[in-house]
């Protein structure tokens, strides 16, 4: 299945954010749930191996957008071991704000998944971007996943980060995930004054003007709690 969905905002005459484009591409179905807020509603199982799904987000200068999802994404194997692909591109304009915080991506046994995120930020754009990957359902060995996240701010690389799951060299290594079964991070613009570290989480001021909250967890609940601790410690909010 190949699907393309798109969201774009526009500033109206009164300076309020209006959703100028809301194009669902089933199974990526979009619902406006509040002014400036869109929920992703999955209207089919998956992604399944062989699916090629893409979401394009354009946050116009001076507008604000929140993207959420109603449920976690369960990545399943497809026929003949084909790879599933989820591509998200987002551009956030000058003075604009994007909060992208969907529910976790869960890698079911046997899946082969690729996630690509490209985030292009204007110099004074604000962003809050959460990514959570869960290594299989309860008690399940995960399939394989390769995610790549590239954030560029004002044309300068801000964060480039890849996660590989389901690789024998990486899984279970105390250098990468240890005994965790979930990995997650939150990228927030604005640099925390200093690094803060707790049990399984860290607030990491990046070299550029942003902060990465990074966490590992044994399950999705613990991961979310740890990311929350980090957000609280690093930005004073959650």
């Amino acid at each position, binding site marked *: 299945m190949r699907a393309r969905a798109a969201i774009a905002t526009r500033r109206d005459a009164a300076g309020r954010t209006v959703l100028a484009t809301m194009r669902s591409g089933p199974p990526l179905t979009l619902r406006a749930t509040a002014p400036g807020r869109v929920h992703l509603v999955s209207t089919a199982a998956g992604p399944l191996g062989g699916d090629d799904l893409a979401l394009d987000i354009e946050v116009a200068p001076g507008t604000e957008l929140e993207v959420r999802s109603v449920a976690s994404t369960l990545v399943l194997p497809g026929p003949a071991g084909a790879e599933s692909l989820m591509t998200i591109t987002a551009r956030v304009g000058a003075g604009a704000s994007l909060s992208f915080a969907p529910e976790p991506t869960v890698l079911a046994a046997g899946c082969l998944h690729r996630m690509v995120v490209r985030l292009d930020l204007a110099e004074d754009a604000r962003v809050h971007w959460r990514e959570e990957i869960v290594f299989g359902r309860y008690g399940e060995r995960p399939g394989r996943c390769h995610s*790549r996240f*590239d954030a560029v701010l004002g044309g*300068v*690389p*801000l*964060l*480039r*980060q*890849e*996660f*590989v799951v389901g*690789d024998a*060299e*990486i899984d*279970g*290594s*105390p*250098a*990468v*995930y*240890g005994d*965790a079964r979930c*990995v997650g*991070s939150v990228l927030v613009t604005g640099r925390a004054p*200093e*690094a803060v*570290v707790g049990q*399984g*989480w*860290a607030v*990491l*001021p*990046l*070299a*550029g003007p942003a902060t*990465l909250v*990074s*966490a*590992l967890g044994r399950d999705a609940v613990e991961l979310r709690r740890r990311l929350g601790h980090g957000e609280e410690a690093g930005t004073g909010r959650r």
Partner: protein
Amino acid sequence: MNAALLLLADSRLPAGGHGHSGGAEEAVRIGAIRDLAGLAAFLRGRLATAGLVTAALAAAACRLGVSPPAAADVSEWTRLDAEADARISSPAQREASRTQGRLLLRTSRRIWPSPVLDTLAGALSQGAHHPLALGAVAAVAGCSPAEAALAAAYTSVTGPATAAVRLLGLDPVAVHRVLADLAPAMEKVAATVPTGWEALPAHASPALDLLAEHHIRADMRLFVS
């Protein structure tokens, strides 16, 4: 194969590399590495993530180091350094990388004097990231980008391995057996051919980030990182 590569990868090169454990000291302290098997798993994961990234950056730096001076100017070194910065989330690890890069460059400018190294040192007053320094020095010493990558991959695991021998009292022969078993993986990591700087590998190792940030706050430390 270049004899200079051996000098560059040798732990006896007086560039301060022996002072860094690459997260191994903290991993030993919290019990994440307790024995040879734990060390092997640590090194495999480190090589496949941080090692891969550092090897790719070293290769890119080496390629830049052999290009004509007009193409390898201050702005290009700064741009490659920003690519390294974007791949190291942990401030403690960025600091460790710059400290090692600064020392390697200082030492190497006396061993292999070259305008390339002068340009790099001048471009990054806070210290070049270690893989950039390593790649540039490799270029000046006559090594190929693939050799620079191999030296980076090699040092990404040999430093932590040696540290673990000291910290846990492991049998050094058994630890070298682990390293020998990793040799094919080192070559695979060094063979990754990047297309452009943006697309260079960026494999994260969240546990190493946590270890580095805990380590820098620890009271008793034998190693800098």
